[in-house]
């Protein structure tokens, strides 16, 4: 039993850390966010050269054969840097879609390009009326000749503006909220009928409302099984949540650490703020919550990596806990910094924002608590002795 990183994992962690500290100073990040692209193509190229873009893909697919633990390590470090490049959209989301549902032809067409950085992709799953429900898909894909015609609008699609391909969930049969009848399609963003309304998100990343107006695709653009796309969407969600939560846990560590450091320096009433017990206790609680999130992150990631049937339940538990603890830690950090906590000058404010954004993605903590509760095992009542165990 051991929670240590392997030599390769330590190298990976160190190389990301090194990159972040050299390139992702808060001021540099702010300037980069304000460029029209919103991120650095040069950094993207470096990610490709460092092998990061190929991390989750198998060697036979042209990647570097990393597993979910490697991705967790990667995302935790990238999260600390609050990077602006579309790693999450292209490598995590589209990567998960391709690896779990891509045909040989689709993999061939995209993975090499994603790994080299020449192709970017994203996944469009959300719709306004659906809130967090992946089943609820109003966008339709109607059979037309050998192919399909897609119509509908997708919400808050990560980095669609710079994506060469959008993997979109559309309804091929059944009623709007049916579990069955959803199919994923690989759509070239330049296809006729695809239009984007682009905007920044509050965390300085980019997203779009994507409208599909009678977009023609061929049968070979179907990703995964026809009408059974929900399973693939859920796989994508599971992997995305693990990645987002790894990122969140990285941010949580910095939130409590920065807060402790700041309060050691800042004096009021003739004392360093960190001398006040009420603040010491808050810091201890922030540390505890961050560690509890890390424990669940490890547990869910390891179980998913081992293909355990418990993994999905643990992923719901993780997303719930990270959402809840993220509020507590983020708010505690801002409160402890006083007025400085609400300015854009310190990085804690940016982690605070990012944690709020992560909670909104793929279901907030209330949603995941509901999901967990539904999947929770209720042991059969064997009618044993009526008393509770001694504790």
């Amino acid at each position, binding site marked *: *039993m*051991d*929670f*240590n*990183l*392997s030599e390769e*994992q330590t190298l990976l962690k160190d190389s990301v850390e090194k990159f972040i500290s050299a390139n992702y100073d808060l001021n540099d990040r702010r300037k980069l966010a304000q460029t029209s692209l919103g991120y650095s193509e040069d950094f993207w190229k470096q990610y490709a050269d460092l092998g990061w873009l190929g991390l989750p893909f198998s060697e036979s697919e042209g990647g570097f054969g990393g597993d979910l*633990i490697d991705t967790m390590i990667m995302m935790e470090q990238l999260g600390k840097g609050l990077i602006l490049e579309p790693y999450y959209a292209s490598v995590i989301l589209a990567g998960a879609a391709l690896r779990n549902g891509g045909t040989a032809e689709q993999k061939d067409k995209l993975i090499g390009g994603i790994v080299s950085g020449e192709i970017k992709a994203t996944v469009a799953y959300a719709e306004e009326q659906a809130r967090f429900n992946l089943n609820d898909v109003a966008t339709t894909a109607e059979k037309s000749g050998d192919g399909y015609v897609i119509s509908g609008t997708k919400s808050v699609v990560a980095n669609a503006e710079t994506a060469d391909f959008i993997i979109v969930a559309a309804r091929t049969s059944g009623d709007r909220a049916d579990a069955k009848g959803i199919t994923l399609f690989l759509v070239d963003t330049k296809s006729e009928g695809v239009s984007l309304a682009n905007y920044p998100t509050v965390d300085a990343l980019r997203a779009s409302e994507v409208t599909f107006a009678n977009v023609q695709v061929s049968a070979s653009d179907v990703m995964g099984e026809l009408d059974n796309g929900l399973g693939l969407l859920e796989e994508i969600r599971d992997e995305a949540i693990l990645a987002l939560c790894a990122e969140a846990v990285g941010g949580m560590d910095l939130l*409590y650490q920065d807060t*402790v450091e700041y309060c*050691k320096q800042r004096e009021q009433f003739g004392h360093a703020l*960190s001398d006040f*017990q009420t603040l*010491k*206790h808050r*810091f*201890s*609680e922030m*540390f*505890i919550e961050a*560690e*509890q*999130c890390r*424990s*669940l992150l*490890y*547990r869910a990631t*390891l179980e998913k990596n081992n293909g355990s049937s418990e993994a999905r339940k*643990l992923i719901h*538990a993780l997303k*719930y*806990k990270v959402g809840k603890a993220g509020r507590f830690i983020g708010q505690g950090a801002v409160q402890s910094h006083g007025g400085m906590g609400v300015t854009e000058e310190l990085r804690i404010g940016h982690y605070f924002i990012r944690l709020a954004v992560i909670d909104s993605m793929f279901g907030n903590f209330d949603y995941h*608590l*509901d999901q*967990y*509760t539904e999947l*929770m095992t*209720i*042991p*059969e*009542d*064997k009618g*044993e*002795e*009526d*008393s*509770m*165990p*001694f*504790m």
Partner: protein
Amino acid sequence: MDISLNKEDLAFEKEVEDFLAEHLPRGHEMWTKRAEWFAALKEKGWDVINWSKEFGGPDWSPTQHYIWDKVSCREVLPPVMPFGQVMLAPVLMKYANKEQQERFLPDIRDNKVMWCQGYSEPGAGSDLASLKCKAELTDDGKHYIINGTKIWTTMGHVANWIFCLTRTSSDGPKQEGITFLLFDMKSPGVEVKPIYTLGGSHHVNQVFFTDVKVPVENRIGDEGKGWTYAKGLLQHERKGIAGISRSVYALEKLKEKAQRVPVGDSRLIDDAGFKKKIAVAEIELLALEFTELRSLADMVNSGSPGSQSSILKLKGTEMQQTIHELTLEAGGIYATPWGNKKFGPKFSKGGMEMYLNGRPATIYGGCSEVQKDVIAKRVLGL
């Protein structure tokens, strides 16, 4: 990163399961066949699992201890008071002289002498080092004369002996001048008064000492160094308090009971609000189990528990109390009938008892507020 148990550990897990299946007295036999159970444990060499090999312990690895906890918490074991075997014995093994070890350890091992702990005083709770109970050496240097009082003495009314922190000097820092003494509760001048806790239970007492004469041979280690020995003991106390595996098991049992509680034509387990509260507790425990594993892995790999171990007592006791509360809530109206007559489901009264008796978990062994101070100091460097 790998959480799987190795082949030897898996074999050990099986060995524990088989041993319990063969020897553990169940149901009513837990009380009538206690002696056989302890004999079987001793024969197996598993009666004093926290003792070092030199004194008859099994020399388990941290992982084996973890496995034992995990497997045995799923059963009801005949209880052993922790004061002798778990708390005092490690101090004796580390700090007592050979003669004292030979005198006291065998009876502790065989549960022949029941011990109680003389630590807290009315004026020294969380701030234990400010204790005042006085021990003065007689002119001939052969005895200490004890005057003072100890409080919250669990099982003091039935204990045979007490291990007691006394003040032999008030010069210098309060942590110095504390002396660790052992004496017979039947000594002249020892008086035990019961303290009834919420719900009318009698577990704890206040103990008064008036000119109690204790031979110097009963002093552990050096005079004035008792604080060092006591601190070590508190670590052993805290280790057992978190009880995470036990909480996991108790929550499973609560889910079973909640199927028997009617809510109109439905069952409590189907009540969305209640079920969600169970889910929240379960998620916290899923995390805490892994926090414990991470601490264990650090123990195995580096010899010392990582910073996350500081969380275990604090969160572990909070989770116990959460389960107490949920059990109380599950009992509903039948949580209130008191006394010896049974009304309503048995666990309903038990839930109230748990709720009332469970409050000290976050108070003793270093209260939660002290634990947070400790984390701030040791982990966050404040």
